C-alpha cells in the first residue's frame, strides 16, 4: 500500500526531511542521507570567506535528493526574497524554505515578514515552505498566499525539546488544507513519531541528527520513527480512557 507525499509536484516516499547544519564532519551527510533515506535536505547561502573559502555543501548531497535552500540570514521579507531568487538562479530548483529571524535568543521566526515573503515568492512560482511560529490565523494567511506547505516549529531551533507547541499544531493539522511539516526542536525519534501520530504530513530534523554521537545511525532511527508514527496515524489509534479496560476476560472459575 503506497503512502506517498506529494509536495510541490514532487513525490516523496519518505516523510523525514533533513538538514545539512551542524555536522562535525560533512562526509557524514551523504552517509546519513543513505541511512535515513531522506529525500529532501536544507542548506544555506552565504558569502564566500575570501580568506578561507568554505567548501560547496552541494558536493555532499547526492543528485537524487531534493535541495531545499533556506533564507537564513534574512531579517525581513525583502532579504528573504532576495536570497530565494539567488538560490533559484544558482540552480537549486524551485523549493525554498523561508526563514526570517531577528531574535537571536530563541530564533523565533517573524510570522509577519514570513507571510510577506510567501506572497511574493509564491507569485513567482516558487514552492514556498514558510518556517513559522504555530498560529492558526498566520498559517491560514500563508496557505492563502500560496505556500506549498506550512512548517510550524515544535520548539526552538536546536533545543531538542520536542513538540512543545502540540495543541496549536493540532489546530493547524485539523484546519489547514496545506501539508503541515513540523520543523525545529524535534530532539528524539519519539518526538518525530509523536508529530506523525498527530497527523503531520512530514517532519524536518537537523540538529538532533547532526549532533548525535552517531549521526548516521540516528538518521536511521528517525526514519523508522517517522514511518512508525505515520503507520499509527493511518491505523487510527484506539482511544484513551480514564479507567482500566481489561484485556483478558474476567475469570469466574477460581471463585466457584
Amino acid at each position, binding site marked *: 500500500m503506497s503512502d506517498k507525499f506529494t509536495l510541490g509536484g514532487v513525490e516523496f516516499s519518505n516523510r523525514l526531511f533533513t538538514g545539512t547544519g551542524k555536522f562535525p564532519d560533512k562526509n557524514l551527510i551523504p552517509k546519513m542521507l543513505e541511512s535515513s533515506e531522506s529525500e529532501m535536505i536544507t*542548506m*544555506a*547561502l552565504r558569502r*564566500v570567506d575570501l580568506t578561507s573559502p*568554505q567548501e*560547496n555543501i*552541494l558536493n555532499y548531497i547526492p543528485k537524487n535528493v531534493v535541495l531545499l535552500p533556506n533564507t537564513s540570514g534574512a531579517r525581513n521579507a525583502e532579504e528573504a526574497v532576495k536570497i530565494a531568487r*539567488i538560490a533559484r538562479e544558482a540552480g537549486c530548483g524551485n523549493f525554498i524554505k523561508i526563514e526570517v529571524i531577528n531574535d537571536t535568543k530563541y530564533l523565533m521566526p517573524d510570522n509577519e515578514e514570513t507571510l510577506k515573503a510567501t506572497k511574493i515568492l509564491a507569485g513567482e512560482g516558487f514552492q514556498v515552505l514558510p518556517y513559522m511560529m504555530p498560529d492558526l490565523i498566520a498559517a491560514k494567511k500563508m496557505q492563502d498566499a500560496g505556500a506549498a506547505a506550512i512548517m510550524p516549529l515544535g520548539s526552538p531551533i536546536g533545543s531538542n525539546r520536542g513538540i512543545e507547541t502540540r495543541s496549536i499544531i493540532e489546530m493547524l493539522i485539523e484546519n489547514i488544507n496545506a501539508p503541515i511539516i513540523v520543523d525545529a526542536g524535534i530532539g528524539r525519534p519519539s518526538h518525530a513519531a509523536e508529530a506523525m501520530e498527530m497527523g503531520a504530513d512530514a517532519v524536518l530534523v537537523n*540538529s538532533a541528527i547532526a549532533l548525535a554521537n552517531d549521526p548516521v545511525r540516528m538518521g536511521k532511527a528517525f526514519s523508522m520513527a517517522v514511518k512508525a508514527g505515520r503507520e499509527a496515524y493511518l491505523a487510527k489509534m484506539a482511544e484513551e480512557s480514564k479507567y482500566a479496560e481489561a484485556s483478558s476476560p474476567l475469570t469466574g472459575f477460581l471463585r466457584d
Partner: protein
Amino acid sequence: MELLVNGKKEVLKTQTNAKQFIQDKNLPLEGLVFMLNDEIIKKDRLNECILQENDKVEILCFVSGG
C-alpha cells in the same frame, strides 16, 4: 580601480574579467555564485564580464544550514 567585494573595499591594479578575478583569488569556479551589481553572472559568461570602477561584487556559495 576600487570595487566593493563581499562588502569590503578592494583595489584592482589592472582591468580584469570576473573569471580571472575569481581565479586570482584561488577560488574554484564550481559551486560559486557570482553577482555583479545585484545580478547573477552565469558561469559561461564570467569571462565576458569586465569589472569596472565602483562595481559591487558578491561571491556566494552554498553552505551547511538547517
